[in-house]
């Protein structure tokens, strides 16, 4: 690329720079996500001709002015962006793009994880890969090959008697049961705490194996907004997630059934369950929706437990969580989490 081009880091405090970026993205039908950490632009004659950003381990908002496409701008843009991510210790990187643009990212070393044609492809780069995650699963396969196993994906923020009820039911109905704990750390209870409380909460069930959800099970909360209109976004995200589950995770562990709890509150989860019901059977996996356990007439949910924590309603919390979770909530370690729950109104 010639020296007439300048690469610049966007200063988010500069409203003029931000507006110029937003205008450029707008022309490409992209929008600026509020969780964006770092943005690069390439300029020519004082006008933006290309941009890319990242948030966490995900590259997003990649856009190049049509006039300048096909001139090696993508590598000039992504090379410094990836270097910055590496400096920040992120050496496993994801990008979402449309299937028609996969090629340019593959030449930079990205590998396809999964795609939903024509909407979206998920690609990854760096020190970790879906292959390595599958190896982790196969190494942790706890039941003999040929055993028909079931799976449940949980966030457990925190682990309640509702989770316990669903897991116990599935463990009784199957020879083996795998529990995947969502790794994405966007919850008030941090991942290691959630994982630990799940392990303790199911310790007495012999045929239950708790595994890390990794980056490949419901981790795309960070799904960039721009591929589809909002309305379709959840649907496409869900299809991609189900595709990865059915294509890689279920075969690695011999999973034939997936259990979910009925969702009374959250629209996104309800949509997710509905899409699974439509798609999983055609991929040889049965979806079983279990009615939520109720306590005094209302369904037990982790969000309700957090609500009770906000109100210091400990008598009620005792009815909603097992002893292991209660012990944790009353420990010193939990105090900072409880503090945070009380001061935020985060849904998660």
């Amino acid at each position, binding site marked *: 690329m010639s020296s007439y081009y300048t690469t610049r880091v966007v200063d988010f405090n500069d409203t003029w720079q931000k507006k110029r970026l937003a205008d450029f993205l707008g022309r490409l039908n992209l929008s600026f996500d509020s969780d964006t950490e770092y943005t690069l632009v390439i300029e020519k004659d004082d006008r933006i001709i290309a941009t890319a950003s990242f948030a966490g381990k995900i590259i997003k908002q990649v856009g190049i002015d049509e006039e300048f496409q096909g001139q090696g701008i993508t*590598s*000039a843009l992504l090379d410094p962006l990836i*270097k910055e991510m*590496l400096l920040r*210790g992120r050496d496993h990187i994801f990008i979402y793009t449309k299937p028609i643009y996969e090629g340019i990212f593959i030449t*930079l*070393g990205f590998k396809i994880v999964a795609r939903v044609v024509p909407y979206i492809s998920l690609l990854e780069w*760096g*020190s970790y890969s879906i292959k390595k995650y599958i190896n982790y699963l196969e190494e942790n396969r706890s039941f003999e090959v040929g055993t028909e196993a079931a799976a449940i994906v949980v966030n457990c923020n925190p682990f309640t008697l509702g989770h316990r009820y669903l897991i116990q039911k599935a463990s009784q109905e199957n020879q083996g049961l795998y529990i995947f704990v969502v790794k994405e750390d966007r919850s008030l209870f941090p991942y290691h705490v959630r994982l630990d409380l799940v392990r303790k909460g199911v310790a007495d069930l012999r045929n239950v194996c708790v595994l890390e959800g990794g980056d490949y099970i419901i981790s795309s909360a960070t799904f960039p907004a721009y591929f589809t209109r909002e309305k379709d976004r959840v649907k496409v995200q869900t299809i991609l997630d189900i595709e990865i589950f059915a294509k890689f995770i279920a075969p690695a562990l011999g999973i034939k059934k997936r259990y979910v709890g009925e969702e009374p509150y959250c629209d996104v989860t309800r949509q997710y369950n509905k899409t699974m019901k439509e798609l999983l059977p055609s991929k040889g996996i049965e979806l079983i929706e279990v009615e939520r356990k109720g306590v005094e007439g209302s369904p037990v949910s982790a969000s309700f437990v957090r609500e009770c924590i906000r109100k210091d309603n400990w008598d009620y919390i005792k009815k909603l969580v097992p002893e292991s979770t209660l012990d944790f909530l009353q420990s010193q370690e939990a105090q900072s989490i409880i503090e945070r729950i009380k001061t935020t109104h985060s849904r998660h």
Partner: protein
Amino acid sequence: MRITRQARAGSLESSDLMVILKPLKQGEGIILEVNSIVKNQYEGRIKQAVMDVVKQMKLDDVYIIVQDRGALDCTIKARVETAIKRAL
């Protein structure tokens, strides 16, 4: 010799390569992963070039990721050497 921190050298531009080094625990040896647009034809050559430098500098317990876009042997060796010196 062992490295002490993660380091990188090179770029993702055409005809170049990016080398990333990560320290491994003592006794874990050398893990080399090569990803290249010409992997089918030249994987062996690329590995050879990387290992030449690694052996010459007597490096051990390192995880090496090579992201190649058709670099020449001399470029590969220079990038690996730079990455090692940055990682010490």
